[in-house]
């Protein structure tokens, strides 16, 4: 049973988000409000330090806003189990991949599945399917150090999809990639959006990524300039 009732759009709504870090000196967000529709692909752009990553962390349930509220399918995040929200509804992709060096590609994909009721065989089957989906079936048993940076990011994307999330949050997913790998990853994200209807929120500095999404949200000094 889905813990989060399906409600009319938007999938995600942020209202008046502010985030002040505990020292009280840095106000990373200053009243950010936005909606993200289901099946939408959105890029968030802006200079370094403008609050993009802070916003992404709040939307992904990694952090709590100082003020304001985020609604997921109409339910305030403050009223739901954030661990469960992250495990079931959100997939994270990071600029530095963060794949576990001791595990093979297919094992890395299984890591989020420990929070599900899947048994070992089901975990392996699903991970194998995801690794194939990102085009790494032939590299499934390779450790991260044996993979190219582009391949590592594809493993990270497969891992983000492990629990069939409805929302994929990517923090500069192509930031550490060469142009060829960048295109491959972008193509993969585009496919996931187009074919599976996955909602994408991507932080990026890349005009290519921005050109590939439906909407660009621009930020500066903790505020949304346009969306």
């Amino acid at each position, binding site marked *: 049973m889905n813990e989060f009732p399906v409600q009319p759009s938007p999938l995600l709504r942020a209202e008046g988000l502010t985030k002040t870090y505990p020292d009280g000196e840095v106000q990373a967000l200053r009243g950010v409000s936005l909606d993200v529709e289901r099946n939408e692909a959105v890029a968030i752009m802006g200079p370094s330090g403008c609050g993009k990553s802070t916003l992404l*962390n709040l939307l*992904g349930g*990694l*952090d709590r806003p100082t003020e304001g509220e985020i609604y997921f399918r109409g339910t305030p995040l403050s009223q739901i189990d954030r*661990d*469960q929200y*992250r*495990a*079931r509804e*959100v997939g*994270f992709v*990071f600029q530095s991949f*963060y794949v*576990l*060096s*001791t*595990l093979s590609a297919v*094992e890395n994909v*299984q*890591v*989020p599945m*420990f*929070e599900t009721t899947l048994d*070992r065989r089901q*975990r*392996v089957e699903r991970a194998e399917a995801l690794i194939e989906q990102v085009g790494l079936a032939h590299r499934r048993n390779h450790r991260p150090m044996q993979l190219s940076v582009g391949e590592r990011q594809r493993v990270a994307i497969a*891992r983000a999809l*492990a*629990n069939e999330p409805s929302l994929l949050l990517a923090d500069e997913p192509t930031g550490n990639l060469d142009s060829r790998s960048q295109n491959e990853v972008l193509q993969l994200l585009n496919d996931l959006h187009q074919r599976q209807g996955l909602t994408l929120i991507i932080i990026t500095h890349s005009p290519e990524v921005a050109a590939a999404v439906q909407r660009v949200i621009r930020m500066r000094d903790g505020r949304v300039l346009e969306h």
Partner: protein
Amino acid sequence: MRFITLILRNLLRRRTRTVLTASGLAVAIASVLDLVGIASNFERSFLTIFVGKGIDLLVVRAGISNQLSSNLDQKLGDKLRGTEGVAQVAATLIDTVGFEGAGIASALINGWESGSPLFKGLRILEGRAFEPNEKNVAMLGRVLALNLGKKVGDKLDVAGEPFRVIGIYEGESLFDSGALVVPLATLQQMMGRESQVTGFVIQARSPDPVAIADLRKRIEAEFPGVAATPARDYVQRDVQIRLSRVMAWATTALALLLGSVGMLNTMIMAVFERTQEIGVLRALGWRRSRVLRLILGESVCLGLFGAALGMVLAVVGLRALLLAPTARGFIDPNLPPAVLFLGLILGLLLSILGGVYPAVRASLLDPSEALRHE
């Protein structure tokens, strides 16, 4: 992939640190097991001497904690024989002697009367027991004979006195087999303790504990200045046994402290180094409880690895200890299963003591802060 696979891979990621931490634990656990094992075997062997010979009470001078320091008049034996409820009485003079040539610093020497009930439980492997009025003859325990390289008919120098080996025996305990038995009169003369004995052992007419307790009261009332103690109580109260027990448990406490500090240090370092990774796991939806289980699981696996290594080290160490002349004939190289099991419990305890704090700390990490950690 199983959860345990992830735990083991994390331990293997830093092999050197894992091996060093486990080795530290192993040394601590091995020391504890050897000391507890020696103390336990010491007590068991001591008790076997009395139980095997059917001894119900030991009569020594009241107030002494070490049997060797007791001194009683041999004539008391006749009076004890006349006490109601007494079946048999045997006098014994005990001392220690060294055999420097063979590298044996200390061996028990027992002075017994010919035909004494104390011979019960000794199996003569070679030769014979001594006859009444025979002097300067010795029966050697099998282990002592082996260590001295003596056989029946050989001459033996005991504390400057010439002796002839007339028998080799096997005792029921290591103490018996590592000792020698000489005629009581010979030992009294040698030690300058004519007509003196260390004490008497008594076999009661009835094995009923109540009857033995009554007999004990009667003896103590009738003969002031002597203490009659049941064999088990006597063994447990013996100062050397108590000392060895206290030392073993003191070492255990110290090993627990040092081992858990070592484990704590390792796990805190592991958590600190992997802060970002923990942030990633939390971002992927892992609950605090799963992070806690991961870190505690690593700690427990490390503890069990250390315990297994410690048990092997304890067995090897005890056998190596037997190479030392002072230990020969006194130490039973076999660790009882209960003592080995203690190693496992110690490993678990150390890993939990050292792992709980880092695991809780890891589970309480704020995911977004952990992800920003460099």
